[in-house]
């Protein structure tokens, strides 16, 4: 019966957010393939998914975008189908514009843009064989829409992901393959802790929330975007930003008084 089980591929599946996505999709009933360069954490994550449904690790370094096709081919040979791709592999790129080097530019764009595109095209070639098509979710960033400074590489790469998602949505539409991106902001991960630590106050006051966004909130949205419940959403960059783009200076008023009693009682 296992070949009847839908198969999801998560690039960057060993990272903090990627792992949450892998485990959530496994809980949702998918067989999940973890594509990552980190073999130790990748195998750990795949084993955890395997305990829920079925999981497998495939070595894939997103900086080597040329390997995307062979990685998807390995998944297809092992599982017989691909239904869902989540592109969660990414690298940060904090750097003032004046100090950007050609090498840094290539590294960020190769992983965040080129890697995601070639993974999508390779996975789509197998999704086309499914009667019901498939679904692609690219993790973008709210920084693809708005600047926060010293992020020219990362933000430009994510803006590219958002535009790429729309174009992929058009090109893959005849095959019932849906493509959306998920624009995240201020997700609490060890990977970003150091970088965002010095601007923690700014980050916290940028949201309509009194804490950072949790990786499991990202995976809740991914789970929705790959489900039939979101059939009507296509070519869209879904913001999971706690309202970050809706205002500039946050009001601190509330309909509760200081005792926690609301004014309406």
């Amino acid at each position: 019966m296992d070949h009847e089980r839908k198969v999801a591929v998560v690039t960057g599946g060993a990272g903090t957010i990627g792992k949450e996505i892998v485990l959530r999709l496994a809980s949702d009933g998918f067989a999940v393939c973890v594509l990552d360069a980190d073999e130790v954490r990748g195998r750990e994550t795949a084993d955890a998914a395997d305990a829920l449904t079925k999981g497998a690790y495939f070595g894939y370094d997103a900086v080597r975008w040329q390997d995307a096709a062979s990685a998807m081919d390995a998944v297809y040979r092992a599982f017989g189908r691909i239904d869902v791709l989540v592109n969660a592999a990414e690298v940060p790129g904090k750097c003032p514009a004046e100090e950007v080097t050609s090498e840094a530019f290539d590294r960020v764009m190769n992983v965040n843009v080129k890697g995601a595109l070639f993974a999508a095209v390779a996975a789509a070639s197998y999704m086309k064989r499914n009667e019901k098509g498939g679904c692609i979710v690219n993790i973008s960033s709210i920084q693809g829409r708005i600047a926060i400074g010293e992020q020219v590489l990362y933000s430009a790469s994510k803006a590219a992901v958002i535009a790429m998602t729309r174009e992929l949505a058009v090109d893959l539409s005849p095959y019932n393959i849906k493509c959306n991106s998920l624009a995240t902001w201020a997700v609490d991960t060890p990977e970003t802790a150091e970088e965002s630590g010095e601007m923690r106050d700014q980050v916290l006051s940028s949201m309509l929330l009194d804490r950072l966004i949790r990786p499991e909130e990202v995976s809740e949205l991914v789970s929705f975007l790959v489900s039939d419940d979101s059939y009507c959403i296509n070519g869209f960059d879904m913001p999971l930003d706690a309202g970050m783009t809706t205002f500039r200076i946050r009001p601190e008023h509330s309909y509760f008084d200081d005792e926690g009693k609301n004014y309406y009682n």
Partner: protein
Amino acid sequence: MQNNRKVVVIAGGASGIGRTTGFELANRGYRVACIDVNAEAGNQTVAELNEITDAAFFQCDLTKMDMIKTTIDRIAEHFGRIDALLCAAAITKHIRVMDITEANWDLYLTLDLKAQFFVSQACAPHMVKAGGGRIVHFSSMLGTIGDGKHILYGAAKAALHSMTRELAIDFWKDNIQVTAIAPAYVLTPLVARHLDEPGWKEKQLNAQLNTRMLYPEDIAKTIAFLVTCKTPALNGAVINTDAGVLCFRFKPKRMQVT
């Protein structure tokens, strides 16, 4: 136990996508307060909903702001709580600029904008008492683009996008999240009558990306997610539920349906 079950208010819940969303949320454990001006359709919907959940009908003319407040307070009293709101009531028809009068300006902007605001305002205190809530505004692609025949509806929906943000910001400390959905072409019974017109369906499909047209159920499922999702981080946003209509301008001829 019964009274701990969450309550969704659906204004314009007797028919169309409002009605479908009632069933979707009933199946997910919500009790449903159905508001509509049409008592016959409302009672029929509620009778069917009562086979799955606790539901009650409240007749209300959404052009009367004091009646909105009274109705919402009655709902809170009846069910003991209000956790979520969908305002799906709207009025629209093809109307061109030179045919617009002050009277239809006032009617359309009242039903498509003012009522959504005052229903939200009336529900908020009850949501605060319940520890938080979810408001989903019913917008449209016409809040973002035009079509030369819905100037009043479109103006109301564009204003609704701003209102969605403002409510999200104003209520953020009270744990009320406010989002909007923006559908495009949906095969409601009212729209489905065009299916007989030659070329109509092809034109619709070429304007969207998905290979089948959307039904009210498709929109209702996304609304149900926005109401029931655990994360409060999805807030203040307009979600395009349009099968891709707004993300592209045209597609290559080889992809078009003829």
